[in-house]
């Protein structure tokens, strides 16, 4: 207990930062795949599919990620499904990210002006062709800035995965702090590392935004 910050502490923090990056990647890849399905389900011609996906989004967006992670790891185990922390965290983050990305992307798809949909229809393109060749390529441009903006939030939110035993950046910071009792130093370092990971993304998203000449309205997380 006590002592001073040394290279081992920094290595430990670095190790935590790697986990943060890894978890973020898992969250984004999984969340993007499921989120895409959610986005399509939200505009499905079938009312039941729309209602189900809307309920999914509403519930997930109303529940703290911490609770989702907890129930995903221990809750599944309680009903007899043993999962590794990585699988549980991956699944929970996917569920969480999918709800948000699904909403962002639904908005982007729907913001492609209606005449574009009609023009594609008028050319006798099939539903899939319209989506793939006309709507999505345009929606992607609209969706990119808010998506990148949301990624920034995910990087910070992976810290909650400590509840299932991950020692990622924030948790490693807590552990270091709890043996050093130097909160200002430790948390300043953590803030700096998060900033170093997030700011390039923020800059990138701003650049995209500027290039497209429009503001991004992203439901960002705190």
């Amino acid at each position: 207990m006590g002592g001073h910050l040394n290279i081992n502490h920094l290595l430990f923090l670095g190790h935590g930062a790697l986990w943060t990056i890894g978890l973020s990647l898992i969250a984004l890849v999984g969340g993007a795949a499921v989120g895409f399905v959610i986005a399509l389900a939200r505009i499905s011609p079938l009312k039941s599919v729309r209602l189900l996906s809307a309920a999914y989004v509403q519930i997930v967006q109303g529940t703290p990620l911490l609770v989702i992670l907890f129930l995903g790891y221990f809750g599944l185990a309680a009903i007899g499904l043993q999962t590794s922390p990585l699988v549980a965290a991956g699944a929970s983050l996917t569920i969480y990210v999918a709800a948000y990305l699904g909403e962002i992307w639904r908005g982007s798809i729907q913001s492609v002006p209606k005449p574009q949909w009609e023009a594609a229809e008028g050319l006798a393109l099939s539903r899939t062709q319209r989506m793939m060749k006309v709507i999505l390529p345009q929606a992607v441009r609209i969706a990119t800035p808010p998506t990148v903006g949301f990624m920034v939030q995910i990087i910070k939110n992976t810290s909650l995965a400590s509840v299932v035993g991950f020692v990622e950046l924030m948790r490693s910071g807590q552990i270091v702090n709890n043996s050093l009792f130097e909160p200002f130093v430790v948390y300043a370092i953590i803030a700096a590392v998060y900033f170093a990971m997030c700011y390039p993304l923020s800059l990138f998203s701003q650049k995209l935004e500027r290039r497209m000449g429009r503001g991004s309205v992203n439901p960002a997380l705190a």
Partner: protein
Amino acid sequence: DLLDAITQAKKIRISTDLAIPPSGMMDSSMKPTGSDVEVAQLLAKDWGLELEFIQTTGATRIPNVQTGKADIIISTLSVTPERAKVIDFSKRYATLQSDIGCLKSLNVKDWPDLKDKTVGVSRGTTQDTMLSNMKDKELKIARYDDDATEVTAAVSGQVDCVGTSATIINQIGVKNPARIFESKIPLASFDLAIGLKKGEPRLLDKLNAWITENVKNGKLNAIYKKFHGVELPPDMRG
């Protein structure tokens, strides 16, 4: 049962919070250390098992054994009847002396002196429960998520009194010599025990036997003294 499973795997998975010094923490080369860590290491060595720490936070120590993610908990679990409804406890392997510690300059002798002072505690600890139940004493309690935050609150001046173990009380002055804290009122002594899933009598018996033996041979006392600076109470030293 669980004991067989452990023996078969030749490995014991122990749920420990490594962010609650001095029981579980990291040394300067970021290796786990602390009184609970050494107890766990001793147990694994005696039983000839490989040891795996399941890193937990305070909140997930129990779900880890309930759902089979870990075999036992050694992580400053103090015994209360309420908790005993949910998991089984072994015999005590240590006790934890808790005090109300205040700024040295503060004139606190007894409970009435604490009126209109804020006492910092770690949320959900037995100290917290005890102080919260003292409704007649009109205490103001500030609950922090862990000891480190509590110590920082004391160091930075957010609180002038804390309810925690003597070891931690001393730590405050080390961090900020301008704010030396000392134990003012003894609070209670809690029994710490090993926690395990309900319904594992063979494992429980074996743990109890191991504790009895190591209390007798003084090993547990040595570990405790190393980290807490004081010996276990006389009635435990056998």
